[in-house]
């Protein structure tokens, strides 16, 4: 046992004295800091912009759009004139033309209003929709007679009244917005509430869900603004609750399965916790890119990249380089059986991988603390049986690093097996790195998910690596909430992947042992 510990110490000495170790660890630290600074600069740039008003290039784009619509408007008007002068008597096309006229006039009025009041139509979504409704309604009222010819009088007047009433409400909100933005939003929500309450077509539960959602918006009304993130998550929460109520998923027209229902309940719990804990308030105010929420995961995948390469190089040369330089001799003539030598090598590489991961963790935490402490130190929120729980930020990050360590370990053992079997450093390092990159490409492009629906996909190693999303299924919720990315591509379950990886490791380690113990060293 004593001698075996000596062997382990020797292996550690060799690993730590390799130049490549120092170089790659240094590059890893520098790259984390560098990428952190890059994102910091980008974030500062985003935050320095004023999102309530538009800049000059946005403005001139709107002007261009308006001009284009005006030209189209002239064309339609002259066509209508032609019909009315009796040159063309097609009633259907006249009706169509008037509808087009309404749309174009509505758009022009809308653009006029935006330009006149310098409102950013790209970010403040709710006021944008009010503006649009108002403008279109105005155009509709103007040509109301023309498009609604032939209706009965009672119906005609009721519809006109309705349009006018909603147009009036919109105008009130718009006028209020000029004086007090927060009050305008509240007024807008009040009108919506009233509408929901008076609507007899929807059930009581449905109405409650919608009212609740408005209440949340009211709560996070920051001077008439709701950040895009928050708005999207509130909307997503609402739609999930409706799905659960109707027992029907968004995408498919079929009842939810038991698992889907459970998952939806968990999702709702997480989303509610997210919104109510105010996690979004720490996000950058108008952060469309979602940069800040992803910084940690970018740090981990970037630095994990270097740690993987380092461990592949160390493991991929472990037997082969000793054989090629001949230094294996002093191991073989030692009074220890070959299986002990191999075990010591595996243990020392594992220790070294853990050591590198800890350095990686410390670097990430320090960089994050120095640059992004106001954005990202939020806990992970998960849910079990419909109850949300929080996981401390530092612990969560550490677990993420450890999960990355699983991939590192698999590729390390793969490289070590190749190194033992081929006794060729270039081949084993090259093949392992190619596999590493191939896996990254396949997993990041969701290739396996789209390529086929067959069961065989489950047995491809890359479908069972990169387990972050399986351990923490709600990490990508922020992306999902902002509507960019739905969590597709999970072919296998966590348990299946863990068993698969265990079997894979046993096979690789066994092959390595057999090859090292049985084969002659010439």
């Amino acid at each position: 046992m004593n001698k075996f510990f000596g062997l382990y110490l020797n292996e550690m000495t060799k690993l730590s004295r390799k130049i490549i170790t120092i170089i790659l660890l240094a590059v890893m630290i520098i790259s984390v800091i560098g990428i952190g600074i890059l994102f910091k600069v980008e974030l500062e740039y985003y935050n320095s912009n004023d999102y309530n008003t538009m800049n000059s290039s946005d403005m001139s784009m709107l002007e261009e759009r308006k001009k284009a619509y005006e030209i189209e408007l002239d064309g339609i008007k002259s066509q209508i004139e032609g019909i009315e002068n009796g040159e063309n008597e097609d009633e259907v096309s006249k009706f169509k033309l008037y509808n087009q006229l309404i749309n174009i006039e509505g758009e022009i009025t809308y653009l006029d209003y935006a330009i006149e009041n310098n409102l950013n139509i790209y970010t403040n979504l709710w006021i944008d929709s009010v503006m649009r409704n108002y403008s279109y309604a105005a155009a509709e009222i103007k040509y109301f007679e023309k498009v609604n010819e032939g209706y009965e009088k009672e119906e005609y007047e009721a519809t006109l009244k309705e349009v006018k009433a909603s147009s009036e409400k919109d105008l009130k909100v718009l006028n209020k917005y000029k004086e007090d933005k927060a009050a305008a939003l509240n007024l807008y929500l009040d009108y919506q509430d009233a509408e929901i309450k008076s609507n007899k077509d929807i059930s009581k539960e449905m109405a409650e869900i919608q009212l609740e959602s408005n209440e949340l918006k009211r709560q996070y009304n920051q001077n008439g603004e709701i950040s895009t993130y928050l708005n999207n998550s509130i909307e997503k929460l609402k739609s999930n609750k409706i799905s659960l109520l109707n027992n029907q998923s968004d995408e498919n027209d079929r009842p939810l399965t038991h698992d889907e229902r459970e998952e939806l309940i968990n999702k709702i719990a997480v989303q509610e916790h997210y919104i109510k804990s105010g996690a979004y308030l720490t996000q950058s105010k108008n952060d469309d890119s979602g940069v800040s929420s992803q910084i940690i995961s970018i740090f981990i995948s970037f630095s994990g990249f270097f740690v993987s390469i380092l461990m592949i190089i160390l493991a991929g040369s472990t037997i082969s380089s000793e054989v090629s330089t001949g230094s294996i001799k002093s191991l073989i003539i030692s009074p220890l059986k070959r299986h002990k030598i191999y075990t010591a090598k595996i243990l020392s590489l594992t220790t070294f991988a853990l050591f590198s991961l800890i350095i990686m963790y410390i670097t990430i935490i320090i960089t994050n603390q120095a640059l992004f402490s106001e954005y990202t130190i939020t806990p992970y929120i998960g849910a079990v049986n419909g109850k949300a729980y929080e996981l401390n930020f530092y612990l969560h990050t550490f677990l993420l690093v450890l999960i990355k360590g699983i991939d590192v370990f698999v590729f390390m053992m793969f490289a070590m097996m190749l190194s033992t079997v081929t006794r060729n450093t270039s081949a084993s390092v090259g093949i392992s790195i190619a596999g590493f990159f191939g896996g990254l490409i396949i997993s990041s492009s969701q290739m396996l998910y789209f390529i086929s629906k067959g069961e065989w996909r489950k047995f491809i190693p890359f479908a069972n690596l990169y387990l972050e999303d399986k351990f923490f299924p709600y990490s990508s919720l922020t992306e999902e909430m902002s509507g960019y990315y739905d969590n597709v591509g999970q072919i296998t379950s966590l348990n299946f992947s863990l068993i698969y990886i265990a079997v894979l490791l046993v096979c690789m380690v066994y092959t390595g042992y057999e090859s090292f113990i049985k084969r002659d060293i010439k």
Partner: protein
Amino acid sequence: MDAILKIEHLNKCFGKKKILDDISFEVYSGEVFGFLGPNGAGKTTTIKIVMGFLQADSGKITVDGYELKKDYEKVMARLGGIVENPEMYKTLSGYTNLKMYARLHDNVSEERINEVVELVRLQKRIKNKVKTYSLGMKQRLGLAQAMVHKPKVLILDEPTNGLDPAGIKEMRDILRKLAHEENIAVFVSSHMLSEMELMCDRVGIINNGKLIGVKKIDDLLHEVSGKVIYKIFSKETKKIEDVLSTQYKEKILSVKDEYVEIEADDELITNINFLLAQNMVHYTEIKRNEVSLEDAFINITGGGGAIE
């Protein structure tokens, strides 16, 4: 004397080619045993099997009563050695290399490490990285490594490779001292008989994978020495043949255009000299040519096994 290293009926093939064919011999404590043979005869293969690099197809190896296959770790703890060239971890210092090796054995103290470093006279450079060492220094460091755990059998494959004459002498002295004073069995392989002559007590000769014989070095030398050949250089070699053939026909070995070869002792060559002078034969030189050990060695091994 006890046989500390026993090799019995060792066979090994690489593919279909037979490398070792039924090799058996013994090495005793307190002797330097030479393993002699041309390149490719199977010396290194035998050593690699004993040291655990290769597995024999059949045969038995015992060290100090323990069998290699059954008590691998006990056998290896009793062996020390260098296989081919000593290869160290080049980026580490000589001392670290020794220390790392010492960790794999029981009870190797710091003092013992310093002791062997002194023995191979590397004190000044031991803290330097191995990549800065000359070949001779590496060889000496290899020897230190092989001895650091006080093995009962020291196995060295071509230990004088790359050493200068002074280094060879030094190595020879160290090995003889280890064997005769510390009662270690030293097992040395070489393809040079002249080196073995000065170093070894007994020699085993191997060729084409077969052990030709094991002899005491004195017996071997006696067998191959004692013959002296003289070359008489002259432009009149025909005439010399005529003059000598009357009395000493059986002593003439060959007649060439430039010289005549004659087997003779001191007395005979004096007579021949006189005879040639009497017959007015002109010659430029009489050269004494001793049969070298190498020639004798080639005779024994049948022309060397390197070219196959």
